[in-house]
């Protein structure tokens, strides 16, 4: 029989952190094993479908509209994972009462959060890439891909994921989390200047979106793919950065809190 050796001292330091991160990532990926292929497929189909549906609806799509939708869909595929699916999975853990076991695991909280963000990247990126390729094949887009697309995509995914994560951890009631994510889908798809310019919204809603994260997400990603379409992308980065920082702050406060 193997000797059972209870720990004599605490693990600390970078090696402990890195190992914990890798193990939590393995935990998250295995947890999603049964839904992972389906989720990635749904992301790919909905991203590509959105791009193609525009052409079916309107037949002849004006180049500017095609450009907006093709770049906006990328943001949709990126944020629906973090803002909608992620919180729903956490709500499910809370409803099934498995949440406490997960938070009793001996890993630094930051590794659990970062493993979650990484998982969201893995779920979100294939759909985004396929949507972009489909858009390029379907429409004669005037795209100018710049290196700025990398920080734009990373910040968009990170911010969307962390807002969803902070919300799901801060709210105790799983039903409430589910209800809010439903509302978010509605907001994101219908009333956010992601697939269309903000000018098409009522003034008050356009003004509000200057301070919400969704329009800045669309602006930063679009600025990484086009020239002369997005104005003042620096402001969008600042607003988005502020949302990212705030959601990290809320997450840290919520996860550090003990009832």
């Amino acid at each position, binding site marked *: *029989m193997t000797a059972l050796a209870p*720990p004599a001292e605490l693990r600390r330091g970078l090696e402990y952190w890195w190992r914990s991160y890798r193990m939590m990532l*393995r935990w998250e990926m295995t947890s999603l094993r049964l839904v992972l292929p389906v989720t990635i497929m749904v992301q790919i189909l909905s991203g590509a479908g959105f791009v193609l549906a525009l052409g079916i609806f309107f037949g002849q799509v004006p180049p500017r509209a095609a450009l907006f939708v093709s770049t906006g869909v990328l943001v949709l595929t990126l944020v629906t994972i973090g803002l909608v699916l992620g919180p729903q999975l956490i709500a499910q853990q809370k409803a099934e009462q*498995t949440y*406490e*076991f997960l938070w*009793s695991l*001996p890993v630094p909280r930051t590794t659990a959060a970062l493993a979650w963000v990484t998982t969201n990247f893995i779920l979100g990126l294939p759909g985004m890439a396929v949507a972009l390729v489909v858009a390029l094949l379907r429409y004669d887009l005037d795209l100018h891909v710049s290196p700025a697309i990398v920080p734009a995509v990373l910040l968009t995914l990170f911010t969307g994921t962390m807002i969803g994560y902070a919300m799901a951890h801060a709210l105790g009631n799983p039903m409430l989390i589910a209800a809010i994510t439903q509302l978010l889908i509605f907001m994101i798809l219908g009333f956010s200047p992601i697939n269309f310019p903000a000018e098409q919204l009522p003034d008050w809603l356009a003004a509000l979106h200057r301070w919400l994260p969704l329009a800045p997400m669309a602006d930063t990603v679009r600025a990484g793919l086009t020239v002369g379409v997005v104005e003042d992308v620096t402001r969008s980065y600042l607003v988005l950065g502020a949302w990212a920082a705030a959601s990290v702050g809320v997450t840290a406060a919520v996860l550090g809190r003990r*009832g």
Partner: protein
Amino acid sequence: MDGQNWSLRVRDLVKVFNHKVRANDGISLTVEPGEVYGLLGPNGAGKSTLVKQVIGLLAPDSGTITLGPHDLVADPDAARQLCSYLPQAQMPVASFRAREAIEITGMIRGGDPEAVARRRDELIEALDIGEWRNTLGARLSGGTRRLVGFAMVTVCPGRVVVLDEPTNDVDPLRRRLLWQEVRRLGDAGVAVLLVTHNVMEAERAVDRLALIDRGKLLAEGTPSSLKAEDRGRLRLQVMLTPRSETPELPPFVQHHTRVGHNLMTVIPEAEAAPAIGWAQDLIGRGLAEEYALGATTLEDVYIRLTGDVEAGGGASE
């Protein structure tokens, strides 16, 4: 051993929910390494609240919890590293194969990969769940899932292993295997904190136990020391005829409880003969169907101290 004394010491622990519910109301106890320590009490007694503070999921309002040199209230990270926790709820392993769930948890707990793999295989064999080694958690029965959960938290045990109703849904044969593994944990110097309201099982499995009710520790000791006060007494159990009133009790009955048709009484040994006579008389008059006379058990102590009627040795909530 490293010369360090790894006692778990809980002192004057108070936890109040919503400013009024005193879930833990000044609990103090010490669990020594190698000891299997039972926390016994009815639903809502405050047992789970107590262990959640030990493992760092809840913070007490006042009081201290130390494990060896570590202050677990001030350092919840230390609490998570030094304690392993099997919650009462099912484990989130639906998409894990049984062996994977055990192995990944062992790795998360910092185990060396080879040692984890060896111990995983030993646990699978010791708990007799080899048949489901490669089965996904979603396809496992509740009891097998429970055993996999037990293996997950004990593959690389902490200094303290907290088991909240570990045998729920587990079949009688594998329960015995599980208790053997609990004993091995104790032999390896682990302090086992066992939360249960299953009195019969606790009596056999624990070295010492605390009886908790309404947030307070009512009694603490070995099962036999707790039964000492009942020495010289017997339990007379009478199955009453359905829908009959509780009959008038003879003066020598010291305690009684009735659950359904089951009338449980505690009597002095010296009164055994008249007590049997009384029970036979009840049967003769059609008021009772059968009776049994036996030694008092921990359950009688439990009922006497908590006044709780639902302590029936049932395993689930």
